[in-house]
């Protein structure tokens, strides 16, 4: 594979907060148009890693994060601004990134305006288009965050992230705070966007069953280090590391539990 086949390459990334090292030398590459899952339990360093590769931990991160021929950790101001458009993040907390006094349509138009991509009527029209893309009807443009469900707010967050032309989307536990029915809606939406728009994305999460559906490649972390890395389906079918086996065994899974208890 040539360098163009990768949307991002990370080399020996460390994230240190004072004396505590959250990420201890992690390397990986994200294939263009694919979903890389980064899995692990709380404290494994997955969220620190997500923030660091987007340049959101400028003082704590070291190593190399290659994106479009540039190192994210060593960008100048202008480059950083362009990078912010091309790589975006959505979080678990669907409220946190929305202004409670701003309607969904305005919230999307605002991002377009801030990045100098559209203003006024054009921004509003493009915002309406993005609402449709993420599966919301036009009347949602007039809704405040509290007038929407968690799943609907997350759709607005995804629209805000993508409307600036992002090629890489980092989704940090994007559906974990949602109910089962909504989780499935959001995960299906992310996969549709990947297929239809060629978005490359990183799914940060703890749910290995969800990784099974969504991730093309998988990286499993523990205590700041990578313990397993490779093709997601292959890793989950034949877990090469005892920790991954332990994680898989601990996932509460309906078919497996019923089969086990039927045999008891």
């Amino acid at each position, binding site marked *: 594979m040539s360098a163009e086949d990768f949307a991002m390459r990370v080399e020996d990334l460390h994230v240190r907060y004072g004396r505590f090292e959250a990420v201890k030398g992690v390397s990986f590459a994200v294939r263009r148009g694919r979903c890389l899952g980064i899995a692990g339990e709380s404290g494994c360093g997955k969220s620190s890693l997500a923030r660091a590769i987007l340049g959101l931990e400028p003082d704590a991160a070291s190593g190399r994060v290659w994106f479009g021929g540039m190192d994210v950790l060593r960008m100048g101001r202008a480059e950083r601004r362009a990078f912010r458009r091309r790589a975006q993040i959505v979080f678990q907390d669907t409220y946190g990134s929305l202004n409670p006094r701003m309607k969904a349509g305005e919230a999307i138009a605002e991002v377009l305006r801030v990045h100098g991509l559209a203003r006024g009527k054009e921004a509003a029209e493009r915002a309406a288009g993005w609402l449709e893309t993420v599966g919301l009807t036009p009347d949602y443009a007039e809704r405040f965050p509290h007038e929407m469900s968690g799943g609907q707010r997350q759709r607005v967050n995804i629209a805000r992230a993508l409307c600036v032309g992002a090629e890489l989307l980092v989704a940090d536990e994007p559906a974990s705070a949602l109910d089962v029915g909504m989780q499935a809606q959001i995960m299906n939406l992310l996969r549709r966007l990947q297929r239809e728009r060629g978005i490359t994305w990183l799914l940060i999460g703890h749910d290995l069953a969800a990784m099974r559906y969504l991730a093309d490649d998988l990286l499993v972390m523990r205590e700041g280090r990578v313990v397993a890395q490779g093709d997601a389906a292959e890793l989950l079918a034949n877990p090469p590391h005892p920790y991954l086996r332990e994680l898989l065994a*601990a996932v*509460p899974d309906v078919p497996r539990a019923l089969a086990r208890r039927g045999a008891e």
Partner: protein
Amino acid sequence: MSLLDVEGLELGLRTPEGGTVPLVEDVSFSLEAGRMFALVGESGCGKSVTAAAIGGLLPGSIVQTGGRIRWGGGNAVRRGEGIAYVFQDPGECLDPVFTVGSQIAESLRMRGSRRERREEMERLLRRVGFAEPGRVLASYPHQLSGGQQQRAMLAMALAARPRLLVADEPTTALDVTVQAKILRLLAELQREAGLGVLLITHNLGVVAEVADEVAVMYAGRIVEAGPVRTVLRRPEHPYPAALLRALPRLDAVRGDELADIPGVVPPPGRRGPGCAFAPRCARAAAVCRECVPPWRTAADGRGVACHHAGGVES
């Protein structure tokens, strides 16, 4: 004989005008000693308020407007008697300024001598999996991990020698490996001590792992209930069936679609006259939108509230 019976429970949210908006409607179930009964559903379905009502822990804004909660012998449940709770966030339930030991001692209600109490506390902590109970007794909550805090909460709950343990999303805030350990512990305690456990959860996987019976709630009502294996293997109500299809499973193949559940749960006060699931149900007919489906019991031990259940219509 059952340990606890809930019959026709109705809970309402007080409105400023002096009325109530129904939150929980016609909820009935029985708990057995030594068994784990799971109340499962998505947020807002009424499972947690039902659990709170059982122990008399309803907040002031919610009132019981109908139904009865009684011990198996027929006596009314007196507030706080015989029932212990563990909640989702142990960090919030433990007082940060007291040691774990002094908080468990409070649950022991001054039984026995100081030395006996100390021995009892160490026994309880060992029972919930602590190898060094002395060290835990002297610890403050922040010195313990989330999983250790939840174990300490369980020890505290057991110290009160309850007949019924209500566990409201006890593992939701924990990592999966810790969750598996806590669930195993809960199941052991329930079997050993003949304790009845009411497990409140949104996670059908957790139900499948440890519960004996399950009741699935939707928009304030139980829509299907029965033995876990019967209900989860082949649910008859379209809602639990849809929940199961929406759940990511470990034996999935990449590229499989998750079957999402279109639409949203109707909020209290905006539930129609018929089946609350009808607006999201592929099988909904006119009768579903007009009449609340009656509760039917089947030969396999389950009960279902659906106009289409029981071979009435295919």
